C-alpha cells in the first residue's frame, strides 16, 4: 500500500467515523428510541471504552492485563464515594479517573517489571487481592445523593458515555500514531532489540498503562452516574476484565477498529442470548473466542482485510 492510498483510506475512516458519531448524537433527539435502546447503547459505549483501554496495553504492547476490573472498579467506587460526600458529580467523575491513575502507579509500577505470563498472573492476582479487600471494607451497596436522579436522566448518561467513547478513540488514535505508538509496537515485537535501539520499554509501558487505567477509571465514573446505586464487589469481579478482553480479541488486537467491532459483537451477542439463555451466552462467546484465537489470531478485522484482498486479486 503506498502513501496516497494510505492517507485516502484514513481520510475515509475519519468521514465514516464522523458520520457514525453524528448518527449517535442525533438518534435520541430525532427519534423516540426509548429507555431500553439507550441503556443498551450505553453498555455498548462503556464496552468500547474498556476494550480500547485493554487493547492499548494488550494489543499494542503484547502484555495481557488481566486486572482491568481493578481500575474500572476503583473508578466506580471512588466516584460513588466522592459524589455521596457532596462533591460535584462531574468532579467526582474526573477524580475517579485520577484515582485509577494513582492505583496504576501503586500497582502498575511493580508489575511493569514483569514480562509475559508473569505480568498477566501478577495483574490478575493484584486485582483479586483488591477485590477481596474492597469486599471486606464495603460489603453493602453505596448510594448517590437523592437529587441525582433529577439531574441525570438516561439521556444525560447516554451523551456522557458517547462523549467518553469518542474521547477514548481519539486518545488511542493519537497515542498509537505518535512516537509512543511506534515505540510500543517495536517493544511488542522484540523487547530486547527495541531496548538496544535506545527505546525504554519500562517508560513506554508505564505511560500506556497509566493512560489505559485512566480511561477505565473514567468508564467506572460514568457507570456510577448511570447506575446510582452500586455494589462495589460486583464492579471488581473479573467479568469486567474478561468482557473487554474478549471483545478486543474477537475484533482484532492492536487495531482501533477491532475493539469497536468486537464490542458491537459482544454486546449484541450478550443481549440476544441473555434474554433466552441467561448467563449461558458465555458458553457461546467462549467457544467463539477460542475459535477466533485459533483460526483468526488478528480477529474479525483480519478476516475483513483478507476478503477485501481476495476481491482485489480477482478483479
Amino acid at each position, binding site marked *: 500500500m503506498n502513501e496516497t492510498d494510505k492517507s485516502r483510506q484514513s481520510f475515509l475512516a475519519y468521514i465514516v467515523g464522523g458520520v457514525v458519531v453524528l448518527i449517535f448524537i442525533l438518534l435520541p433527539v430525532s427519534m423516540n428510541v426509548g429507555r431500553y435502546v439507550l441503556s443498551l447503547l450505553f453498555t455498548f459505549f462503556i464496552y468500547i471504552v474498556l476494550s480500547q483501554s485493554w487493547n492499548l496495553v494488550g494489543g499494542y504492547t*503484547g502484555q*495481557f492485563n488481566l486486572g482491568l476490573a481493578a481500575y474500572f472498579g476503583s473508578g466506580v467506587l471512588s466516584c460513588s464515594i466522592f459524589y455521596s460526600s457532596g462533591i460535584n458529580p462531574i468532579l467526582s467523575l474526573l477524580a475517579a479517573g485520577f484515582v485509577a491513575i494513582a492505583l496504576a502507579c501503586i500497582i502498575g509500577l*511493580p*508489575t511493569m*517489571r*514483569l514480562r*509475559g*505470563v*508473569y505480568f*498477566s*498472573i*501478577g495483574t*490478575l*492476582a*493484584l486485582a*483479586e*487481592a483488591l477485590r*477481596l*479487600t474492597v469486599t*471486606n471494607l464495603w460489603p453493602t451497596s453505596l448510594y448517590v445523593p437523592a437529587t441525582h436522579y433529577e439531574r441525570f436522566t438516561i439521556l444525560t448518561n447516554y451523551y456522557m458515555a458517547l462523549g467518553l467513547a469518542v474521547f477514548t478513540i481519539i486518545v488511542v488514535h493519537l497515542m498509537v500514531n505518535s512516537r509512543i505508538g511506534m515505540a510500543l509496537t517495536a517493544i511488542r515485537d522484540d523487547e530486547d532489540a527495541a531496548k538496544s535501539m535506545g527505546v525504554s520499554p519500562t517508560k513506554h509501558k508505564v505511560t500506556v498503562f497509566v493512560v489505559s487505567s485512566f480511561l477505565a477509571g473514567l468508564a467506572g465514573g460514568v457507570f456510577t452516574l448511570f447506575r446510582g446505586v452500586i455494589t462495589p464487589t460486583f464492579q471488581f469481579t*473479573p467479568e469486567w476484565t*474478561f468482557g473487554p*478482553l*474478549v471483545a478486543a*480479541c474477537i475484533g482484532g488486537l492492536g487495531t482501533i477498529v477491532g475493539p469497536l467491532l468486537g464490542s458491537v459483537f459482544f454486546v449484541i451477542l450478550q443481549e440476544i442470548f441473555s434474554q433466552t439463555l441467561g*448467563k*449461558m451466552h*458465555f*458458553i457461546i*462467546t*467462549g*467457544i467463539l*473466542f*477460542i475459535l477466533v*484465537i*485459533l483460526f483468526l*489470531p488478528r480477529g474479525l478485522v483480519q478476516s475483513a482485510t483478507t476478503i477485501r484482498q481476495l476481491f482485489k486479486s480477482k478483479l
Partner: protein
Amino acid sequence: MIAQIIMYGVIIGIFYALVAVGLSLLFGVMKYMNIAHGSFVVIGGYISFWLFNLLGIDPFLSIPFVLVIMFVIGLIVYGLVFSPLKRFAEGQRLGNSMLITFGLILVLDNLVAFLWTSDVKTITAPYSGQVIQLLGIRVPFTSLGVIGVTFAIIGILHLFLSRTYIGQSIKATAQDWEAASLLGININRTYLIACGISVALAGAAGTAVVLMYSISPYSGLEWMLISMIVLVFAGLGKIREVFLAGLALGLLEQLGVFLLGGHYRAVVGLVLFVLILILRPQGLFAK
C-alpha cells in the same frame, strides 16, 4: 495455640500442593499456562459430589473414578484446545494458551452452572466434623484423609514419572522436546498423556475441595490463583518443589490469618505472590 495454627498451615499447605501439582506438570511438560485449571478442580469436585449423592460412594473411594473420568476429559481437552495451539510459532504459544484456556473458563464454568445450577455444594460424610486430638492439637478427620491422599497421589506420580517408559518420556520431553523427539519419543502422545494426567490431578484435588470446603460453578478462579501462587513459589514447571511451595503458602496464609484476621486470608497469599514474582521470579526454592 501456635501449634494449632502451624498444624492448620501444614494441612492446608499439603492440600494446596495437591491443587497445584497438575498445573505444574502441564506447564513443565508443554510450557502451556492453563488458566482453566481451577475449573477442572471444580468439575472433579462435582463428580465426587454426584457419586456420593446418587450412588452413595464415599468421597475418598470415589477418587479413582474421578481420576479416570477427568483423565478422559483431559484427553478431549488436549485434542480440541491444546493440540491446535501447535500451529503457532513457539514464542506465541504461551500467551495464546493463556487466552484460549481463558475462553475455556467461560465455557466450562457456565456449562457447570447450566448443568448443576449455581448452588454451593459440599459433601457431608458420616465422619465430617469428627476431630482427632493429637497432643492437644485438633486435626479434622477429613483433613487427615486428604493429607494421606495427597501423599499417595504425589508418591504414585513420582514412581510413574521415574519408573515407567511413558513417565520417563514425559520427563525427557519436559527437559528438551526436540532432543526427546530425535530419540524416537512420540511427542504428541506424551503431551496427550501429560494433559490427561494434569486434568486428572486437578479432579482429585476437587474431591479434596468438596470435602474440606465447598464448590460452586464460579469458584474455579480461587483454586486457579492458589495453584498459580504455588507454581510461582516453586518455580515455573518444577514439580518436585511444589510440595514445599504448598507448605510455604499454607503456613504464610495462616500467619496472615493470625495477624490480620480470616477475611484477609487470600489477600496475604496474593500480595506475597506478587512480591515473589518481582523479587524472585525463579521461585523460592530454586537454586
